[in-house]
């Protein structure tokens, strides 16, 4: 569907060059929901803007549906763009148009008839929860309302590719969920391919099947969401995964755990998705003469099984504890790390 080869973008400002996107090679399949994550300034927005050539690449090629976007003439590009929806980080609504007229705009561009236009616009307004605000001008909307207009506008022309630049960052979780559900719906029903920049791992986890992690303009890791998250290779990815797993906070409060729970061993268990380990704690407690307290952590159900991290406290005889640890490391796929030994 989309294939990208050696894409580069260099900005020159005040005589210094910034390589915003650096030699990115990727391919995205039809129907993928492709997440892009990375630190602020990593080049995510620039990357997405290159895809529909809002920025002209400094180098590299982009193919969408076997059409070489980077080689298109002005008019061909125009037509190709009608099939690519885009949600902007800063909304970019026309202040001179009402909510309704803003959403109708891409339909006017594509020459959709008035009756159908009205119908589609109305159903989109309902979908994004803006009924009653049809005749309102953007300046009278809240941030999230503006963003929803932007999303409705991007979907109006039933594009086959949707580019989202932090489309839900101004939205509360409830609205985010309903928007994401909407996207998944369209994705499944019409095979819409979505490329989505986000800072919220929750969004990635909820709807993406592919993910790319960017750092300093480079894609440092990409692939299946579960693969990437289960075995993060780079520091960036690890940091992001920690957010999802709630470890980021755990890390910060580590000291606190160490001090609060003075007896027994503090252990981190890392479940990597196997159903056989579901009753692990129960088994350990029965098999060995120890007690286990669950201090903190998060377990998530994935298709493959439980996945996540738990901090536990094991108390009991030193020997029993050692045996239990041995059991875990030798007989299960759970990764175990002793944070502090018995005092």
């Amino acid at each position: 569907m989309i294939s990208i080869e050696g894409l580069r973008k260099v900005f020159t400002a005040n005589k210094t060059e910034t390589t915003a996107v650096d030699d990115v090679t990727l391919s995205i399949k039809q129907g993928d929901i492709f997440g892009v994550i990375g630190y602020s300034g990593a080049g995510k927005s620039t990357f997405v803007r290159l895809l529909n050539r809002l920025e002209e690449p400094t180098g590299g090629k982009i193919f969408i549906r076997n059409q070489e976007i980077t080689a298109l003439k002005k008019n061909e590009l125009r037509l190709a763009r009608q099939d690519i929806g885009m949600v902007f980080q800063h909304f970019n609504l026309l202040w001179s148009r009402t909510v309704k007229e803003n959403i109708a705009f891409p339909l006017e561009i594509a020459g959709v008839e008035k009756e159908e236009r009205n119908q589609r616009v109305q159903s989109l307004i309902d979908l994004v929860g803006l009924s009653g605000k049809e005749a309102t001008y953007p300046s009278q909307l809240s941030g999230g309302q503006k963003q929803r207009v932007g999303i409705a506008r991007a979907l109006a022309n039933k594009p086959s590719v949707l580019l989202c630049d932090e489309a839900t960052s101004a939205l509360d979780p409830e609205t985010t969920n309903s928007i994401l559900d909407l996207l998944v719906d369209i994705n499944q029903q019409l095979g819409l391919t979505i490329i989505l920049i986000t800072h919220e791992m929750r969004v990635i986890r909820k709807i993406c099947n592919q993910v790319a992690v960017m750092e300093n303009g480079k894609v440092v890791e990409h692939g299946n969401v579960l693969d990437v998250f289960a075995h993060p290779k780079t520091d960036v990815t690890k940091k992001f995964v920690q957010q999802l797993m709630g470890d980021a906070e755990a890390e910060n409060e580590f000291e606190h755990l160490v001090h609060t729970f003075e007896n027994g061993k503090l252990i981190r268990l890392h479940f990597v998705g196997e159903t056989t380990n579901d009753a692990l704690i129960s088994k350990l407690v029965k098999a060995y003469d120890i007690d286990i307290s669950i201090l903190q952590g998060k377990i998530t159900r994935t298709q493959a099984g439980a996945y996540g991290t738990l901090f536990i406290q094991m108390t009991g005889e030193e020997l029993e504890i050692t045996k239990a640890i041995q059991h875990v490391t030798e007989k299960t796929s759970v990764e175990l790390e002793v944070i502090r030994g018995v005092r």
Partner: protein
Amino acid sequence: MFADLFATIKVEDIVEATKETFYMTIIALIGTFILGILLGLLLFLTNKGGLWENKWVNFITATFVNVFRAIPFIILILLLFPFTDFLVGTIRGPNAALPALIIGAAPFYGRLVEIALREVDKGVIEAAKAMGAKTRTIIFKVLLPEAMPALISGLTVTAIALIGYTAMAGAIGSGGLGSYAYYSGFQRRDFDIVLLCSVIIVLIVFLFQFIGDYITRKLDKR
């Protein structure tokens, strides 16, 4: 009392002059609006980074605009005689003043249009581009509507400048309040006429300003 104060004034002449001023200003304004928008768009679109970026067209448009802005109005009127004769069929009276008024004011308004278009949010233009809009669509559905308050304010300014120009068009017998004030009033030291004409001109200016401000405010949804 009024009759006393303005003993020497012929009311029908003043009414006639007021009509002429209105006639010339309004027709010229329509022409200026159309031609000015065209010139302004051309300047904006062909400029560096514009949708039709084209150094040469930009240079030629700029030259055209600058040349006609620079020529003293009275010389412009005379230079345009052959053109006026061809277009209007006469080189005297209010109608003959129109081409000169329009060609004198349009380059000026064109620059104001260019300034207004430059203030349109780049992000919005980008959004339209990303939707695959034709340049025509971008012009008519994005650039012009988004710039409309500034375009109308600029038109108001131009309208008032045009009222000033009509005074000079008196040279070719186009009449109007300005030339009536100058020739029948000022040249003959009849300051009652100057005063009365000035008051009427100021009232007309206020009228235009009021209408312009009203429309601007209505249109501005920011």
